[in-house]
């Protein structure tokens, strides 16, 4: 009698509330309402947190982006889209966009293929593979702040480990200023990002590889496929869902990059490693041009949104059904 919730929830999405017409249907309508209230009641704490601390702040940024505002009191100096037009005239912000693109391209062209190669290597029976896996993934659990400080010291000009090593193997000419050199700072940053994150992507790929049935590659082997053909025509297509997720996470990560840059260079030298989040931080928290900084937040949000929607529309669509409705394996 206390069955206020329906036993089988796996069917259709929504239960239409019945019209409160016939007297016999009244009891059922009440039960449905009660069911709805119970279901939504369980959602309330999560909704309050999520709306209050995620959605509302974002909406407020959208509002504040249209004002010249120092961040105190309510914004009142309405300036239309001026913040946005300035933004796209601002060489630093345009540089941010360019550097974001650069990091995305480098990640997709170098870091993820490297992670994939390591995953394939460590997916076979190999002496010490458990150790390698653990080792490659370990930097992921270190905080960006710690990683940043560590590498700012390793890449310290002259005295750092990197220059000592290059000197010791007779390549001193390659050694240099690293993070202090405008033309090398992004490359150095990318090295650190690869050190920190490739293990994460490798772990994703390994999970994906392990879900590929061995019979398929064995069948290809029997059909006379060489290792490259087995990889290209059997493994890669089956790994596609994992690859797409990993690319998605990598791009979102590049858009929001902050911690590492802030700790290592604060965007320097002379803005050469600045990212959108760092520029936003500078304007919002150091120069008190909060309206302008809000406009940067809004543009970042817009880029994420457009990217996410386009990605979902064109790339992820096929995975989504499986992704959100089933749980493969128990995850532990």
């Amino acid at each position: 009698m206390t069955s206020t919730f329906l036993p089988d929830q796996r069917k259709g999405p929504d239960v239409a509330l019945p019209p409160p017409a016939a007297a016999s249907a009244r009891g059922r309508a009440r039960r449905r309402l009660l069911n709805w209230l119970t279901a939504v009641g369980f959602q309330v704490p999560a909704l309050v947190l999520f709306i209050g601390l995620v959605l509302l702040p974002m909406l407020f940024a959208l509002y504040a982006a249209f004002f010249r505002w120092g961040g105190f009191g309510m914004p009142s100096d309405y300036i239309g889209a001026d913040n946005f037009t300035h933004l796209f005239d601002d060489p630093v912000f345009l540089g941010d966009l360019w550097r974001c693109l650069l990091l995305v391209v480098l990640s997709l062209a170098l870091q993820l293929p490297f992670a994939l190669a390591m995953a394939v290597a460590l997916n076979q029976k190999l002496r010490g593979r458990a150790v390698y896996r653990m080792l490659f993934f370990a930097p992921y659990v270190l905080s960006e702040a710690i990683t940043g400080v560590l590498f700012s010291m390793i890449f310290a000009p002259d005295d750092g480990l990197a220059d000592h090593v290059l000197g010791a193997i007779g390549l001193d000419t390659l050694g240099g200023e690293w993070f202090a050199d405008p033309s090398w700072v992004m490359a150095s940053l990318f090295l650190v990002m690869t050190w920190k994150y490739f293990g994460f992507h490798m772990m994703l790929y390994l999970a994906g590889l392990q879900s590929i049935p061995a019979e398929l590659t064995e069948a290809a082997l029997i059909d006379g496929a060489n290792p490259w053909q087995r990889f290209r025509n059997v493994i890669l297509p089956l790994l596609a869902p994992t690859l797409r997720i990993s690319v998605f996470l990598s791009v979102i990560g590049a858009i929001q990059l902050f911690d590492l840059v802030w700790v290592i260079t604060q965007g320097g030298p002379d803005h050469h490693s600045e990212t959108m989040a760092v520029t936003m931080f500078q304007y919002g928290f150091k120069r008190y041009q909060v309206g302008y900084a809000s406009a940067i937040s809004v543009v970042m949000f817009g880029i994420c949104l457009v990217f996410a929607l386009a990605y979902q529309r064109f790339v992820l669509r096929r995975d989504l059904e499986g992704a959100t409705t089933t749980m493969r394996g128990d995850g532990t």
Partner: protein
Amino acid sequence: MKTVRNLPLHAVLVVVGAVMVVPLLYAVLSGFKSTDELSRNAFGFPERWLTGNYTDILGSGAFWRLLGNSTLIAVATTVLVVAVSALASFSFARFAFRGREVLFTLFTMGLMFPFAVAALPLFLLLRSLGLLDNPLGVILPQAAFGLPMTIIILRAFFRQIPGELEEAATLDGCSAFGFFWRVLLPMARPALGTVSVLAVVTSWNNFMLPLLVFTDSKWWTLPLGVAQFQGEYSAQYARVFAYLVLAMVPALAFYSVAERQLVGGLAAGATKG
């Protein structure tokens, strides 16, 4: 024959492994040197193993305070996000109700929006709520931003539990909450472990939010402390290395204990995201 063919592969793995390990080992060894020796003898073993750098840091209250703050904030965030998400996921997984898919889409959309995007308006909100220099100012937003991933993983797990169990519980007079509390949660322990580990690691490593919220060093967490320490002792390399190593130990220790949950959770989250 097989080993011979694998030789190049092993060589590559050893090199990559070295690149991963050397920075960490270098930090550990450097912590045992003096800053003078560090510039003369960059990558050898210390001429004399000095423990002063490490013991000075461990002997000062400041380091332990950071550790305590980080722990408090991570535990509180985890308890909050897992409790709230479990309730919501239960409703998503076991009820059919009008508006369910819309709500779920709303939460999954949160996955697409990184924290940095909302940082500034969030800061303004926290300031107007008087939550700056208050641990709740970090705990509540961290929990809010952790909701999407946690809900997605838990919902998927809750859906796997057979409907017959629920019918049986209902027949025995169990209320919806009773079923959730006495049947579902105990069965979901592995999934709860996974999402908890993810929440702890995320909170432990968070840098931007504590940087914004805590101007007073009283509440600083480890990442803030590390960045600050480097600024303060920038000339004393060896000391900073010792500090780094000590700050890494809790995260690496946690990783070695919870590796399975962490890796499983990331894989689950990523294939569900």
